[in-house]
């Protein structure tokens, strides 16, 4: 984001002030995350009092409510936190790298790529452990990202938001069609991946969360490390180069971060869209335009929204549950419409 000289001047004067505001906002968001975590453990088909939740965690006595907390709700909440961080942060990183405000792993067809590779792994190679097919998720994300970028930047003028989005939609449709075909040919893959399709964090054992934990942490660390260089990239390639940023290295590291985050999250929870689109837009109001602050806010706010959406999914159709991916789409799509209506589009 380019600032005019007066704005830049005004900003320098209030930098101390704005940093304090950013930090206090982040602290508040962390508090909110803690509250949402407690709610996520307590609310569900069977509502459990907070006192029982505390007992289950601190002095476990093996009652039914306590075992629900330990065996179901805590793994689910943990997985919600991890996938919330992963999907939201991967969206923020792609938005920063491509300078495309519409980037999201779902819209760009990246989730579809991960899904196709995993369907292949389950259907043809018989891999059914998350730890095994998560690697195929990484491969699918990388292939889809490269394909979308090549397709979107073909021809003169490079990759505009319009082209990338259209390329992503087309690619997503093709990849989804192929996965649907494989699933019909290989009933085992269909059966195994049925529950995973709409994007859900319900009913996964603690192992799943623990398996993806190292990948999400690695991806997050990598994203935070390149945040500074991404600030330079956001000024445009030429300016970034003159500021001494290594654009190729930054892009490559960012790509690896997205691969780790989106691949792991998709492997564990299925394709969940719109989180990566919404969160960076929502936090920009508090975090400003510094990618480091945007990423920090995204890391905290992603899980908040993911867990809230999951809680909503648990209560709207009791005793059934709506997969969290459907809830995020339902609340995320209006954000997309709002953005496109106020944007000036040409191209």
């Amino acid at each position, binding site marked *: 984001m380019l600032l005019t000289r007066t704005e830049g001047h005004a900003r320098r004067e209030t930098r101390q002030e704005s940093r304090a505001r950013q930090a206090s906002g982040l602290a508040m968001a962390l508090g909110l995350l803690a509250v949402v975590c407690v709610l996520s453990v307590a609310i569900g088909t069977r509502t459990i009092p907070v006192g029982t939740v505390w007992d289950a965690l601190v002095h476990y006595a093996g009652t039914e409510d306590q075992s629900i907390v330990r065996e179901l709700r805590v793994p689910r909440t943990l997985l919600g936190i991890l996938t919330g961080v992963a999907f939201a942060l991967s969206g923020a990183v792609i938005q920063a790298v491509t300078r495309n405000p519409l980037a999201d792993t779902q819209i760009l067809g990246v989730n579809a790529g991960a899904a196709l590779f995993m369907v292949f792994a389950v259907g043809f190679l018989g891999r059914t452990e998350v730890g095994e097919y998560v690697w195929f998720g990484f491969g699918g994300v990388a292939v889809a990202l490269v394909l979308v970028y090549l397709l979107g930047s073909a021809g003169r*003028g490079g990759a505009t938001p319009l082209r990338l989005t*259209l*390329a992503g939609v*087309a690619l997503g449709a093709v990849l989804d*069609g192929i996965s649907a*075909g494989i699933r019909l040919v290989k009933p085992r893959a269909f059966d195994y991946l049925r529950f995973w399709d709409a994007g859900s964090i319900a009913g996964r054992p603690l192992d799943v969360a623990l398996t993806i934990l190292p990948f999400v942490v690695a991806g997050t660390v990598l994203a935070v490390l390149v945040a500074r260089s991404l600030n330079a990239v956001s000024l445009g390639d030429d300016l970034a180069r003159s500021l001494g940023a290594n654009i190729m290295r930054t892009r490559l590291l960012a790509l690896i971060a997205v691969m780790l985050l989106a691949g792991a999250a998709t492997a564990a929870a299925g394709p969940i869209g719109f989180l990566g689109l919404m969160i960076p837009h929502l936090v920009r109001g508090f975090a400003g335009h510094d990618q480091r602050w945007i990423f920090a806010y995204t890391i905290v706010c992603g899980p908040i929204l993911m867990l809230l959406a999951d809680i909503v999914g648990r209560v709207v159709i009791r005793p059934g549950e709506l997969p969290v991916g459907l809830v995020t*789409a339902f609340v995320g*799509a209006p954000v997309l419409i709002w953005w*496109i209506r106020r944007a000036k589009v040409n191209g």
Partner: protein
Amino acid sequence: MSFHSGRRAIVLRPFVRIPVRPLVVCGLLVLVALATAVLALSTGELTIPPGDVLRALTGDGSGAYRLVVVEWRLPRVLLALLAGAALGLAGAIFQALTRNPLGSPDVIGFNIGAYTGVLLAMITVGAGYYATATGALIGGLATGVVVYALAYRRGVHGFRLIIVGIAISAVLASVNQWLILKAKLQVAVSAAIWDDGTLNGLGWASVTPVAVVLGALVVVLLGLGRRLAVLGMGDEAAAALGVRVERTRLAYLVVGVALTAAVTAAAGPISFVALSAPQLAQRLTRTRGVALAPAAVMGAVLLIVSDWLAQHLFAPTQLPVGIVTVAVGGVYFAWLLVVARQRA
């Protein structure tokens, strides 16, 4: 024959010129469609030589062959041809009305809205053809109107239309899933089969309504004559040429929606045929605007070839044809993107 503005054309009466190239292309496409139809009639678990297929169709031949060809395979083949033609026509109408190659029922969320309508109809009324058709028609139309209205801001920009279409589709996908989870198991299963977009297991009972609707709408289109091309010149030009713009546009819109709904009700959402058929036809015939007849023939070719592939690609597993058209159409969409960019 005479030469006019550098293009070869047959002049029947003064001012009525039928250009040669579209005519030849249409003829070739019809041949491809018919050849694929004969192939589809003769292949399957029981392979019947093409000669026997033709004999069975004309009424001779053995009883077993007649049963397989006429009763089992012919309805599906006819439905593929009719539905493909209807989708091609609908796509051509939408693209001409929006003056945008991306203006197709798939992009503006018609299919997914039709699914919502079908689900509601199945839950409240039951799963007959006409209940399904009405549900698909109302659901699809309402979705199209909402998407169009949300995308409207001093005119409809193609990009905005697509993005709003994606967003509304995502919302409706959630609604549909919610309805399925709320519905009884039997309703959910029949709705899920419908949503695949398949011609599997459809018999003569499904062919008749589609054929009747398509026939009636083609008559309406013939009655409207060349007004679609005139509308494509822009509102002012069309009005100056004596076309009542708003009324004509509405008439075409209704025809386009009805065509899509008739197909969608019978076979479920079959994506990308309406998007790609008019564009492919336009490229082959090298006409300037979107032409209806070549788009219809192209749609029929696309759908019957896709359906044959869906049946035989992974035999004995039968894919829904919707999956094949998505894969093929998506590749085409990507290609269109690249080509359009290079020219711009």
